[in-house]
């Protein structure tokens, strides 16, 4: 059982967290976004082997945050509130 650090609640059981996708995957804006851009935003992923920057939600407190994590060792490198003001 792994503990993940919520920037607000501190270390909690991994089962309280839900994975939410790549960090920095900004939704395209405007009326004439090409379909390929939409496909990139909606579907294509970095899926790195090694260090990954990801959006997670702590389901107990409902906060979304950015977690940096090694996808091979599962070591957590950092955990930051989306606004960036808290860090654990």
């Amino acid at each position: 059982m792994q503990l993940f650090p919520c920037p607000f609640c501190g270390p909690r059981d991994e089962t309280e967290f839900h994975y939410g996708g790549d960090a920095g995957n900004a939704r395209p804006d405007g009326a004439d976004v090409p379909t390929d851009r939409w496909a990139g935003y909606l579907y294509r992923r970095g899926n790195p082997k090694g260090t990954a920057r990801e959006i997670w939600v702590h389901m107990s407190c409902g906060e979304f945050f950015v977690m940096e994590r090694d996808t091979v060792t599962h070591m957590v490198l950092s955990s930051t509130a989306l606004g960036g003001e808290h860090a654990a």
Partner: protein
Amino acid sequence: MTRRYSALSLFKEGLAGQTGWKQAWRSPEPKLSYDAIIIGGGGHGLATAYYLAKNHGITRVAVLEKGWIGGGNTGRNTTVVRSNYYYPESVELYGLAHRLYEGLSKDLNYNVMLSQRGMVNLCHSTAEMEIGARTVNAMQINGIDAELFSPEDVRRVAPVYNFSPDARFPVFGGIWQGRAGTARHDAVAWGYARAASRLGVDIIQNCEITDFITEGGRCRGVQTTRGAIRADRIGLAVAGHSSVLAAKAGFRLPINSYALQACVSEPVKPILDTVVLSPGCGVYVSQSDKGEIVIGGGLDRIPSYAQRGNLPTLESVIAGLLEMFPIFGQLKLMRQWAGIVDVVPDSSPIIGPSPLPNLFLNCGWGTGGFKAIPAGGTLLANLLATGKHNDISRPFDLDRFAAGRLIDEAAGSGIAH
């Protein structure tokens, strides 16, 4: 020197003290160039090489594998073979694979131990029964054998299920496919390797692809831990590592890699004569030829390249198993393991040209590509030989994500995605 397996060769080798068997496949040094290179020596890569040689007469082919053949998901899966999918496109694909599986032992001259013991997907409520009826209808219309099972039918094929009145997941019926079953996973890899090698294919193990050689915007070969190897047609069949290689080739795929785990109990006498899947319990189970209870469940919760699987998922799988079969509570678990699978948003594979010309994709099989190996091999071989799709692979092209023509088989894929 005995090359073909037959009753007579078995008899002769028995008399000769088993000394004349030839190694099943050659292990040559890599050449500097080939007509086609296949990256990944799992079932899909090996089958691709075999069908390139057999169906298209292209035999200057190398299969490059970073570890040992069949050491990826092909050697780690729970061996279920079926074609009970929903959409016509999937039925064409998995139906082709299923038909080829039925003739595979003969075609390869290698016993892949296909055991068509049937499979039931349980329904645990009236609502699930209605969906079940719809699925059975779709399968029948698409020409796949399917039957809607009553609770009595389920009791007939799986008498040790928990039919008690206070069962948490009571049986309302199920979706039955009689031609479904299991096959020996290692044998599928070894059988294709042996048959491909005999047709001239070079199978090269311990050879990791570290980069692509591109010239004039086209892929012209690969850099490997055993040197540069060139070819103008390159197939990629590396399952959970597709994104890693795509990044080297300069594009991104609609794939997340997850661990999928499985476990087996100690062997016991025959007690379960079919494959049982319960979506409610999140578990599917069968008994191996050795007597072990083979247990599979849903994906791990965290994108991962750690090939071991995490504890919360294993716990929920075991809890689900004991809801289904309280009698299994006495069994000891012998082994648990995981494979890294390539999960696509619509739970369907990606087959077709990649954004890098000359490089073709066979990936995204996720939790369910073992059953598809003969079809994946046939289709990637066709793409490499002709450069073009045929009618079966066309719908699975990467362009479906930009076109919005997804083939959403989240239910047909069987286990939670």
